[in-house]
């Protein structure tokens, strides 16, 4: 344990705003030498912004950063500045060149030279020695791309540590690793910790945080929630702090508002048996009844969107079977799912939802058109009627239905995408964060709409980061953690505290 705690890095009162959004507000952060410090928070918490400010990718609006051994506060204006101060980062998408050899990746930009030309012998020798220290025995002359992501990450870490060995930031390093690879990574991290490095471990994997970290900093909505010693913070409390709930108050919050006590419709619409997709979601079993609203809950990165994508066929499942209305259904592409009666509102509106230059009208009718087929073009009159109908229903703020969707605000764009899927009258809708970025009044409208649809016999898979929202509309909840389905809750079991316990996992770390 660290008897004499040397403070390696302090960040005090960090402020950072972007147009319209306060990303960080008076955030403090402290890192000691020889510790592994986990930085945690949900979507919009500010983790990535804090890291970007520290590493010089973004400029902070206010606050101070100090490093041990440097009298004046430091300001990093670029990743190179940060490196010079001894701070380096390894990202989830390993930022190395897979076409170059392992050795070269470690030394690029600073190649040792002999008589004016690059000394390859030295590069190979030194990188071999470097990796040997981490007990990674690989052929450093082979291209980096020949090795797995886990190895590539180690190489990135080796490079980072070799260049600047004081603070190492690991941003979601374990997302693509399997168990053995995670073990290896943790060995390396432990070794670095013994050498006196300070490691900032940005992650959402609760198990891992409790395995390896010494302290935890939790951010929420751009503000510091607190700094804790891992051994002294029960896991359920951690989850509560990340989601902004106070565990004591939970029992007083009203759970189920709307009565879905009306006739139980036990008819099963969709059944997934051991359905999975390598790399994104482990095989899961799930059944969805007609007229039910089922919620998918879990922390960021737990696999919610991935599960949704596999159901819809956006990622073609390579394991298991999907049954629709009792019969086997093969989904090779989204159109198969659409024709069966499914709809999917993606989480990433901009990258996968809107077709930016097309008009509001065209964005609304495109799914219905695809379902009808290329030859049965909807008449202009029909298109206009549909569009006006939904502009009215969802209160979409647009000056004209011909305006390109990219000109609308985020929330209104979301409404247009929602209208697109409502238009095809699906039996089953997957809504991934449907109310993100939408004003409170409309949020309630959409929640009411979801319940109406359920009453009409439609089924809905509802994914949201806001538990209250889900409790308001869902009659059943599926809990995911670390890309595995870990449980289901329904009826009276549906309370905030139960959900959070399920997410946390309970047991060892209580």
């Amino acid at each position, binding site marked *: 344990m660290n008897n004499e705690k040397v403070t390696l890095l302090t960040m005090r009162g960090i402020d950072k705003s972007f147009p319209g959004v306060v990303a960080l507000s008076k955030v403090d952060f402290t890192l000691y030498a020889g510790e592994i410090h986990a930085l945690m928070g949900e979507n919009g918490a500010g983790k990535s912004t804090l890291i970007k400010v520290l590493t010089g990718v973004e400029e902070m609006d206010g606050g101070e950063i100090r490093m041990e051994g440097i009298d004046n506060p430091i300001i990093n204006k670029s990743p190179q500045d940060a490196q010079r101060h001894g701070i380096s980062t390894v990202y989830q998408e390993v930022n190395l060149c897979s076409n170059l050899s392992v050795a070269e990746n470690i030394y690029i930009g600073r190649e040792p030279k002999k008589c004016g030309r690059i000394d390859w012998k030295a590069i190979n020798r030194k990188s071999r020695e470097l990796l040997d220290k981490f007990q990674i025995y690989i052929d450093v002359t082979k291209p980096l791309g020949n090795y797995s992501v886990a190895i590539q990450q180690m190489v990135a870490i080796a490079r980072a540590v070799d260049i600047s060995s004081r603070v190492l930031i690991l941003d979601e390093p374990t997302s693509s690793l399997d168990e053995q690879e995670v073990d290896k990574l943790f060995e390396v991290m432990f070794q670095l910790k013994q050498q006196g490095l300070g490691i900032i471990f940005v992650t959402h994997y609760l198990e891992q945080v409790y395995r390896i970290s010494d302290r935890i900093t939790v951010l929420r909505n751009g503000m510091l929630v607190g700094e804790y010693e891992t051994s002294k913070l029960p896991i359920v409390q951690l989850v509560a702090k990340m989601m902004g709930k106070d565990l004591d108050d939970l029992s007083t919050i009203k759970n189920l508002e709307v009565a879905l006590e009306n006739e139980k419709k036990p008819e099963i619409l969709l059944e997934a048996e051991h359905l999975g997709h390598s790399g994104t979601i482990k095989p899961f079993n799930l059944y969805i009844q007609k007229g039910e609203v089922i919620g998918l809950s879990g922390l960021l990165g737990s696999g919610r969107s991935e599960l949704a994508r596999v159901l819809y066929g956006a990622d073609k499942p390579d394991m298991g079977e999907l049954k629709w209305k009792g019969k086997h259904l093969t989904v090779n*592409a*989204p*159109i198969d799912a659409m024709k069966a009666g499914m709809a999917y509102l993606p989480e990433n509106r901009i990258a996968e939802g809107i*077709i930016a230059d*097309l008009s509001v009208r*065209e964005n609304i009718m495109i799914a219905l*058109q*695809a379902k009808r087929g*290329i*030859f049965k073009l909807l008449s202009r009159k029909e298109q206009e009627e549909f569009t006006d109908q939904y502009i009215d229903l969802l209160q979409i703020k647009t000056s004209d239905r011909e305006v390109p969707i990219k000109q609308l605000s985020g929330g209104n764009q979301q409404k247009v995408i929602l209208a697109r899927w409502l238009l095809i009258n699906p039996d089953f809708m997957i809504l991934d964060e449907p109310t993100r970025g939408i004003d409170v009044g409309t949020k309630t409208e959409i929640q009411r709409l979801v319940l109406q649809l359920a009453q009409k016999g439609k089924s809905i898979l509802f994914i949201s980061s806001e538990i209250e929202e889900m409790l308001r509309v869902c009659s059943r909840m599926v809990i995911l953690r670390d890309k595995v389905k870990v449980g289901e809750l329904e009826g009276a079991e549906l309370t905030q505290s139960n959900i959070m316990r399920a997410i946390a996992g309970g047991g060892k770390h209580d």
Partner: protein
Amino acid sequence: MTKGKQLFMRVTKHALFFPLTCLAIVLIINLMKTPSFFQISLNNGVLYGYMMDILNRSSELIILAVGMTLVVAGSGGTDISVGAVSAVAGAVTIFALVGSMSSDTYRMPYGLAILLGILAGMLCGAFNGFLVAKLRIQPMVATLILFTAGRGIAQVITQGFILYVRKEEFKYLGNFIPGVPIPTPIFIATFVVVITVVILKKTALGLYIQSVGINAKAARLVGLNATLLTFLVYTFSGLCAGIAGMIITSRVYSIDANNAGLNIELDAILAVAIGGNSLSGGKFSIAGSIIGAITIQALTTSLYAMKVTADQLPVYKAIVVIIIVMIQSKELKRIRQSVRHKFLCLGERRWAK
């Protein structure tokens, strides 16, 4: 905003503003040099005049530009093989008609030979489409293969000779049908354009192509088959090249594998760019490309009038291409904005003092 300013904004923001302006500039310059530029007269039952000539000669270019527009819109790439493919199509047709020696008799029905030629064009397009859509090879590289090999293939078909078809009927396609005052290519171009626009607008195809070009991921999630659509646009471009080949060879009632459709690919790309279409894909305007094609042809005519030879023409066209893509370049806009920003800041600082 005042009514006048509103009108100005609406006019300049219109999709066809840019191409029409370019056309207007070229036409006005021509008019200044040749006062009789817009004159059309009827001689020997046939319409004559500079404008007629331009419209006539731009027909194959219009057809190619239509194909190129869809390729650019749907895949963000360009099909540089169209010139070579038109030569291949012409070679197939003429070889089918007269075999390996110039002749005045047909070996097979005219219609069938034409069909074979157009089919050959489609096949080449399908080859490109397969490479791009299925094998995911970059469009520039995929179409570069036929760009080089195409003329070689045409040469092999004609065995290195320039084959002539000495039958009067053969010239009708590229020149005039007896008794019809308007040149046939104009009819063909109109036909192709009308059919294409009807299909694009009366089915969802136009919408689909734009969607795939703008956001292929989102298009896939709403149920579109992006791979198939990409394959189709390249095949269609090959089809257009085939038709263009028919016109080109009929004009000179021969096939010269080296020169048929030479450099026409640059013209086609230029037409699409002048037409206001973004070369990175997305929304497109066929009308814009047509205007672009006519503008290019008018530009070519003017340059010829200024005694520029056919070989030297590409210099001017290259400069025009560069200017247009520079204007379209986002980076340039960003540089201009930051320069303007710095300028304003400087000004503000002066004011503050």
